[in-house]
């Protein structure tokens, strides 16, 4: 068994064991929240890390899926049907948003995603008759996937972990696939990629659709967790935070956004009980990390590790 497999097994066991170790419901629920935001950050990273497209509207998909799920459930559909239709609706919106945003690249792309995200937020905020405006909507109860009750914190954590693991597995395969290689190529040399026969637009659009799909999955988990959705959950601040998670942890890696989600969610929820100015703390952490590790924590630590090991390896070889 290779070393990365051993690490994977250790990580899986550790994550599965969290509810057995963390008995406090507040912290266990925090772990579930971290997984939800980690999924949102990893989905955004399909665009950011592999595609080189900076989106400031990714929380829109969390909102579209959440609101759609609530409205469909309220309309009398079952949990499964509303989940599937909500995902389909939100991903379809992603397909349209992608077409609009990919009219531009770089800053233009960012501004269009920002505008689209604000439109979704604006509709949630102002379309009172449908979305109940600022007061938000309640999701009646958590579903029973395969007949399993996920109302208790440990069960919900394991459910979220299972969904997260499946998503991460798909995105990991994507990153190693021919399509993943083409997406990264289109990020680095779009003109050359075209000249090699690649349809850069289609590659980037498909990446956008995939990112919106997994972001929507995070949205479903979000509404199952909170049993509530309001415009606050999909504000510009939320989109920016997700972007920050990916950049802080390291957008060029699969695990970076997860680490970013852990840090930011912890600062928001735990440090904020001790410090009023937790936003300033977050800012300070971000500045310090970017100063010393401009590509984020995971690539930065990896580099330190290699630098620490290199002389030792040489010494052994000599």
């Amino acid at each position, binding site marked *: 068994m290779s070393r990365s497999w051993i690490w994977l097994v250790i990580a899986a066991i550790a994550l599965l064991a969290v509810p057995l170790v963390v008995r406090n419901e507040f912290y266990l629920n925090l772990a579930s929240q971290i997984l939800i935001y980690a999924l949102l950050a990893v989905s955004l990273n399909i665009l950011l890390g592999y595609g080189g497209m900076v989106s400031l509207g990714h929380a829109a998909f969390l909102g579209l899926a959440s609101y759609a799920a609530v409205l469909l459930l309220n309309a009398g559909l079952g949990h499964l049907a509303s989940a599937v239709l909500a995902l389909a609706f939100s991903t379809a919106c992603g397909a349209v948003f992608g077409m609009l945003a990919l009219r531009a690249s770089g800053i233009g792309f960012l501004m269009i995603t920002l505008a689209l995200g604000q439109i979704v937020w604006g509709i949630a905020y102002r379309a009172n008759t449908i979305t109940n405006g600022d007061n938000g909507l309640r999701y009646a109860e958590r579903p029973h996937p395969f007949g399993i009750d996920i109302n208790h914190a440990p069960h919900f954590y394991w459910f979220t972990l299972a969904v997260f693991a499946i998503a991460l597995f798909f995105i990991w395969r994507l990153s190693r696939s021919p399509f*993943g290689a083409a997406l990264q190529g289109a990020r680095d040399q779009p003109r050359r990629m075209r000249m090699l*026969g690649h349809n850069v637009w289609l590659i980037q659009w498909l990446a956008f659709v995939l990112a919106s799909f997994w972001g929507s999955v995070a949205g479903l988990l979000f509404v199952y967790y909170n049993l509530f959705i309001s415009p606050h959950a999909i504000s510009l601040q939320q989109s920016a935070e997700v972007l920050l998670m990916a950049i802080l942890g390291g957008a060029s890696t699969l695990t970076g956004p997860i680490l970013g989600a852990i840090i930011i969610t912890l600062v928001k929820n735990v440090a904020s009980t001790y410090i009023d100015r937790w936003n300033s703390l977050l800012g300070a952490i971000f500045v310090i990390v970017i100063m010393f590790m401009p590509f984020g924590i995971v690539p930065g630590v990896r580099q330190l590790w290699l630098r620490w090991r290199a002389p030792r390896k040489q010494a052994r070889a000599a």
Partner: protein
Amino acid sequence: MTPALEVIGLNKRFGGLPATKEVSLTVMPGERRLIIGPNGAGKTTLFNLVTGDLTPDDGSVKLFGQELLKLPTQQRVHLGLSRTYQILTLFPKETLCHNVVLALLGLHTVRWNMWTYLSGQRALYDTAREALAMVGLGASADRTVAETSYGERRRLEMAMALAQKPKVLLLDEPLAGLSQEERGQVRDVLARVPRDVTIVMIEHDMDSALAFAERITLLHYGEVIVEGTRAEVVADPRTKEVYLGE
């Protein structure tokens, strides 16, 4: 016989500045065509118009009789057009092998696969290594581009284009910035390209280029001034005037 590449009355203006003016040229299958001209003559612009990096104001570009102008760049590549760039555009952090694999993927349907491992595509990697061996980089396949010399990168550009088995290959100054020895290596690579590949080459190094070219087109201020066989163009007084100097 249908020409491999036919350019008819191609016009492109950048603001008020004409980059190409009524450029027409016909390259027959298997031909080795050299395009020369002073800096700013519109040589690279012509390539960019043929590949679709730029859209002309009017005119026509045909590949084996098929009109290209309505097609996006990547579709022109699928019809058998390849090019190298004067300014290197490679993937510096990747291995030479990966660079060529990206070139091969461009024409392979597996490029849409989001599930299978790229590293499991043995056939692609084998073909990529063959292409690298053809340009004398077989031993360097697993080095990253950042670890290679400028001359090696020039040959990698060539390997990426050749690996695609193009029908028409556009080479934009393949010898620029190379040492005498490296020029020899690139010339050998070019000499080994099979005759079913038509080559159009922009080059400043007259010694290497003249030996290679069968027909020559001289561009000046975006216009075709002289065109003909090697001997005709070299003998033409206008060539001396605009290019070779008095």
